[in-house]
């Protein structure tokens, strides 16, 4: 059976991984290539790089990183952050990214998702949705959760599926950084509303949260940063825990 995926997420700026990654004997805690290699060896099912570089001057650095990682790490690589035009998608794919994640630009210009999916195939287009509970529903936010859009997250998810997204990366802005677990109701509502895979993100603090995301939230994949980076849990440990709880994983 198809395995549920565990995806570590690395924030990159100016060519360096930030927030630190705490592997044993890691020579350089900010080197994206070495960190990617270590996660690959540890059994990560995919890797996601989020380019949080603020200035456009340094955007090309992510291309060099992806080229270097793709030359020695042979698992799927997703890159997000600062994707504004179809040409950005092309540059990332040419550098060796397998999927490109589009967030704010999808809201500003939904046609970008359609054009990119038509041109390069849905399999490489991930739409990232940052959602926050507002009253009785969830609303889409952009710019790292700072700007409200007025869009209903479930309707937006369906629209992005119709526009050709191959996968959705769903982050609960209420839970992100809280270590209190995924927003399971949100995850499940979106997962049930679409036929494409959902990556749950935001709020993982324990291995049980990963299990809950899959079992209760019906996520197809779980993304986490800090619990892996700081060595609280290993990828293998997380997978064994999920397996013990009846979840199909790649060991």
């Amino acid at each position, binding site marked *: 059976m198809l395995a549920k995926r565990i995806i570590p997420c690395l924030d990159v700026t100016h060519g360096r991984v930030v927030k630190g990654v705490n592997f044993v004997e890691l020579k350089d805690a900010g080197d994206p290539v070495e960190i990617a290699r270590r996660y690959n060896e540890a059994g990560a099912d995919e890797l996601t790089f989020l380019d949080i570089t603020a200035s456009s001057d340094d955007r090309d650095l992510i291309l060099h990183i992806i080229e270097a990682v793709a030359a020695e790490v042979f*698992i799927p690589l997703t890159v997000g952050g600062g994707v504004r035009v179809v040409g950005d998608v092309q540059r990332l*794919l040419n550098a060796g990214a397998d999927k490109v994640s589009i967030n704010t630009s999808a809201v500003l210009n939904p046609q970008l998702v359609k054009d990119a999916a038509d041109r390069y195939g849905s*399999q490489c287009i991930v739409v990232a949705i940052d959602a926050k509970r507002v009253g009785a529903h969830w609303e889409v936010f952009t710019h790292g959760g700072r700007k409200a859009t007025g869009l209903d997250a479930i309707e937006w998810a369906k629209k992005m599926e119709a526009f050709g997204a191959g996968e959705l990366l769903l982050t609960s802005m209420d839970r992100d950084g809280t270590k209190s677990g995924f927003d399971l109701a949100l995850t499940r509502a979106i997962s049930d509303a679409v036929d494409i895979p959902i990556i749950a993100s935001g709020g993982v603090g324990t291995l049980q949260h990963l299990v809950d995301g899959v079992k209760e939230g019906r996520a197809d994949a779980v993304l986490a940063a800090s619990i892996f980076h700081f060595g609280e849990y290993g990828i293998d440990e997380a997978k064994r825990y999920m397996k013990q709880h009846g979840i199909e994983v790649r060991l």
Partner: protein
Amino acid sequence: MKVDIAVVDYGMGNLRSVSKAIEHVAPAAHVVVTSDPDVIDRAGRVVFPGQGAAPDCMREIDARGLRQAIVDAARSKPFLGICMGMQVLFEHSEEGDTACLGILPGDVQRFPREAMHDAAGNKLKVPHMGWNDVHQAMSHPLWAGIEEGARFYFVHSYFVQPAAPEVIAGFSHYPFPFTCAVASGNIFAVQFHPEKSQNAGLALLGNFATWHPGAMAPTAAMSGATCA
């Protein structure tokens, strides 16, 4: 210069990972990513990858004048189809009602919506995306050193249905069994992405780089594809 392995470039997706993965397992081989039919003709081996939609793939193959070179390579030398490069070897794809290369008999179908749920009734997503078990339906040099049931990385919404069951080299389940590898003479083709399947995928690519198909008789190839 001698080209050991040509990776066919017809504008459909990321070929860097395919060529990098081959270079990783066959460092001595001269690997070229090419859309030049002459280079494909001269190459010792051909890898035929592909992503995206079937109608676009067929259009791009013809727009670049690559059809004959691909068909000739599939008849004559070690040939590895990957993902869309496997699907278009067959006669017809349901995706966009597309006539394909017709090198192998059979067609390509979408995962049917009504079948997409597991035993517990949970919805199964399409595309089929992620790591799934691959069961080996025959012994083949390209499976050498790869464990039965090893997981490979998939991302696709369509799967092949070979008309000749003897070409089925591997299958997977989602939720029903579907063909994910075929072998016929000098052709081996897979639905999954060996270039993204870590150790198992690298092993398969390494096996391909040294594969010497014995008898070149394309056992299940269509009559039109056999030599006079």
